[in-house]
């Protein structure tokens, strides 16, 4: 065996496992919640903001960090909007199940 394992290969291992997890977790979502699922996954995908913060967070202000700040702003819309809209939708389902118990 020669050399060491590239990070890319390790990333691939993580990726393959994550796809398996995603596959199973998503199929377990009840169809009644498919619309909230769309907005929740939308919120989760905004975790890309982490990359934006890294880009924005360099000591010296330059083109790269300006772009990063802009990306942070865009992704923040998604972070806040995604989770809050999901919450709003799910609140409705809460009332619904309570009403059912009455």
């Amino acid at each position, binding site marked *: 065996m020669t050399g060491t394992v590239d990070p890319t290969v390790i990333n691939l291992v993580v990726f393959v496992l994550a796809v398996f997890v995603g596959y199973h977790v998503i199929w377990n979502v009840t169809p009644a919640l498919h619309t909230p699922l769309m907005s*929740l996954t939308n919120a989760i995908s905004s975790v890309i903001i982490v990359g934006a913060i890294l880009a924005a967070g360099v000591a010296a202000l330059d083109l*790269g960090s300006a772009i990063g700040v802009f990306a942070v702003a865009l992704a923040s819309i998604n972070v806040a909007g995604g989770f*809050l809209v999901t919450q709003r939708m799910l609140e409705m389902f809460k009332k619904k199940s309570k009403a059912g118990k009455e």
Partner: protein
Amino acid sequence: MSANQVALAYLVASVFFILALKGLSSPETARRGNLLGMIGMALALVTTISIIAAGGLVLIFVAMLAGGTIGAIVARRVQMTQMPETVAAMHSLVGMAAVLIAVAAVNNPAAFGVPDPMPAGNRLELFIGTFVGAITFSGSVIAFGKLAGLGRHFRLFSSAPVVFKGQHWLNLVLALVMIGFGVAFFLAPDKGWTPFWTMTAIAFVLGVLIIIPIGGADMPVVISMLNSYSGWAAAGIGFSLNNSMLIIAGSLVGSSGAILSYIMCKAMNRSFISVILGGFGAAEGAAAAGAGQKTVRSGSADDAAFIMSNAESVIIVPGYGLAVARAQHAVKEMAQKLAAKGVSVRYAIHPVAGRMPGHMNVLLAEAEVPYDQVFEMEDINGEFGTADVALVLGANDVVNPLAHEKGSPIYGMPILEVAKARTVMVNKRSMASGYAGLDNPLFYMDKTMMVFGDAKKVVEEIVKALD
């Protein structure tokens, strides 16, 4: 924090994201799931902010505050019926953010802990993340425009498919050229700005071209597909930044969108390819022509109220028309009135009724319809045989018996078997066809009574008549 601590915090955040999605397996745990998702996101944010140089902090906070405020306002204001376009708009942001991050990474790889100049492996991954992100952005913008009905202002947003000759060939050629520049970027000795920008620009154009031929009605599948893309873009960026949290979160989102697209195509009995190749929505509304000869029995809201109040059991089948008319609250009131008269009322939900997955569930939830009256298709299809009345409100395709007939375009699609009920009542505004553009034999059956009119108006009249 050390790199190890950061990686561990990211791992915990990833687990929170997984648990968040697991929470959606039932309505009871769903809100906790969303909360876990927020915690995961907060952890990811705090961790990341703690490791960057103090210099940029203020600007970052300002940007987060601005974006967060806009997001919160949108979340508060948006109507439930506008969810599809809202989700589309949000996807576009993720796509754009992915592209911007890629630009920043090419500009200064060191900020991400990647060697400068960027190694070939990371470039390959960045290339993938960038073009997927760019396509997600421009595609989502088009999808948003189509759904928000902006076609009046701008032809590209027309909800009718925008088709022209050689379209698919053009797309193919552009895709190949884009990949070519990607390879050039991969091989470039310097930062490779020229091939990078060219590739990105082509990807933006491709995103537009891929989505315009798809009819407005097919948008839900497209939105899920773009949802999926936004996830893969995040995963691609995660690869190039060696960030396993981005890879995991991206894969979760990517799988989710892919599975939802699959479920929708399956329930519509269409292939994903045929949706993507587009041109379907064009025929909408056209097929109702041949219906003239057959006779239809129509009745008033009062008739409907009278029949239902004498029934023992009524099954309500909501459809897209109910959502358009925003009649859900009126329906709830009607059901309560009927229940007070001793009529058993249940709701039958087809998996693709409406225009997004789970559309009807959200709608009924909004009206606070009790949980235990709402049934999924498999659970209630056996019950129509014993129901006195099946009341179809603004649904069409999901109750179209043509699905049982070989050769029909929707052959094989599972439907709600309303025809088995003793009496069928159908509310819609006209004899026009639904999403699939097909005539519906159900309307011409002897036991069917049509109640024409806007769903909300008709249901409110029924409510009045029930008093």
